[in-house]
């Protein structure tokens, strides 16, 4: 009994109605995801069913958004080459390149 076969579930959009002023795509680890104007990067990732976009420094465990409001810093991500951005706060922009952040996000910089 998958959600698809049930077929009658509402969506958040059904609840509030309307349409976004624009939709576009951004790239996450090379994958194209569709984004709605006004969504944060975390919201775009959640819409695509992606819950993890960084790994921790100590154990390499996967993490994503937790508090959703900018206070836990669990959702850190690299956006357009800039590491440690809070995905739950940063608005998604057309053409953004989002990459999974490993550890401190400074691996490439060798610091």
């Amino acid at each position, binding site marked *: 009994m998958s*959600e698809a076969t049930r077929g009658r*579930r*509402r*969506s*958040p*959009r*059904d*609840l*509030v*109605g*309307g*349409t*976004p*002023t*624009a939709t576009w795509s951004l790239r996450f680890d090379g994958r194209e995801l569709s984004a*709605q*104007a*006004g*969504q*944060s990067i*975390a*919201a775009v990732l*959640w*819409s695509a069913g992606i*819950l*993890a976009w960084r790994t*921790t*420094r*100590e*154990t390499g*465990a*996967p*993490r*994503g*958004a*937790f*508090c*959703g*409001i*900018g*206070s*836990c*810093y*669990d959702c*850190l991500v690299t956006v357009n080459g800039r590491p440690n951005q809070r995905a*739950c706060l*940063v*608005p998604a922009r057309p053409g953004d390149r989002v990459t999974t952040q490993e550890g401190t996000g400074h691996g490439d910089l060798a610091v």
Partner: protein
Amino acid sequence: MATSPSDRDARRADTGPDSGPGTGTAPAGADGGPCDLAVVGAGPAGLAAAVTAAGLGLRVTLLDAGERPGGQYYRHPAPALGAARPEALHHGWSAFAPREAALRAHEAAGRITHLPFHHVWTVVPDGAAAPGWILHAVAGPEEGPARVRARAVLLATGAYERQLPFPGWTLPGVVGAGGAQAMLKSGLVLPGKRVVVAGSGPLLLAVAGSLGAAGARVPAVVEAAAYTGYAAHTPVLLRNPAKLAEAATYGSALLRHGIRFLTRHAVTEAHGTGRVEAVTVARLDRDWRPVPGTGRRIPCDALAVGHGLVPQLELATGLGCATATGPDGAVALELDPDGRTSVPGIWSAGETGGVGGAQLALAEGEIAAHALAGRPVPARLARTRTRLRAFAAAMAAAHRPGPGWTGWLREDTDVCRCEEVPAGRIREAVRDLGARDARTVKLLTRAGMGWCQGRMCGPAVAALAGHDPAPDRRPLSCPVPLGHLAELPPADH
């Protein structure tokens, strides 16, 4: 300090332009002198205070970390998301809409300067214009420095969610209950299709209702407290019929979406590899200790969890404002009925004085505005405040975490999410190294030293150290680019 409109003009003239090191932007409110009132936070308390104060003639600067006013409670989609009915995700939207309209009108008339995307990280006395204050903020995604000078400050910084760790709580798909609500309200997204809601406090019912209405299946709401705790406060409940009606609304929403409501139960473990796939739910005894043998698994692809809210106080404690532990075991500001803190010129309203909900925050914001403007506080507002504060106290007592919750922690359960410090290391610091408070535990284990500065693990670490939490003491209320610190004039330190 009461700031009456009559002496406003005299004040306006007494200071020079706001310039100097650290002023990378020129925020309005720095237009030739301090404003009468700086309000930090545009949630229910701050928004109500700002528009009421402006209506009474004060010149107000309203700073908020968010992009749109409303705070966490009235968090709503960006206009670009084109939601035709944003109010469908809210209770009490009718209390927000007119205040937002008033904010826009005051802005247009130059009575309020609204600075969105401004995260205030410290407030210091203004050496040049005592009594007065300088608020330092990080502005916008570019994190530029900004500062605002004000005669008086009202801290309406609200609260954040209290989290009690359990095995598996760092798995992707385990999200804050408030976090799930926030992401839904602002981004119209869900963390999963089948979402268990767990923890403690009335927020869980609201979250479960919203998730259900937005299309998620919610197999159960798992509440650690016994709602019978409210029975001890029947008279208070009866004086708050609106609150009872609200509870009934939530109750019927649960029924409508076929959601099971378990009280005196907790999620004691989340299972999965890479993401949550199921949770174990166990019965609790009166002290929140899991009853052995009662655990059962509920499959799900997300868990929204939270154990009530704790006041966000670091700006206030940084200024030396007095605090006290409330009936929920959380530290809150000591305020007089008008909203004065123990530091003259620093005021507060809403959750910072003890978590009590949006209606109370609105009333307290308006009360403080009247007092700040030197006007008598309308009796209606004072009565509302008294009644809702009593309700808040009853609610706080009913949901106060019992000491037995640490019984569901394993030695290898991470307590501090940022620094990945497991319960075993914290227990060892307490048992073998003699740590008796969260501060010492932090120094010995790094718990609470990471990015979030202990916001997520603070209450849990304090409980493991065997003490009530101490007041928030963070040197900075958010990470601040080092350059901004270097540019502070020495007098600000």
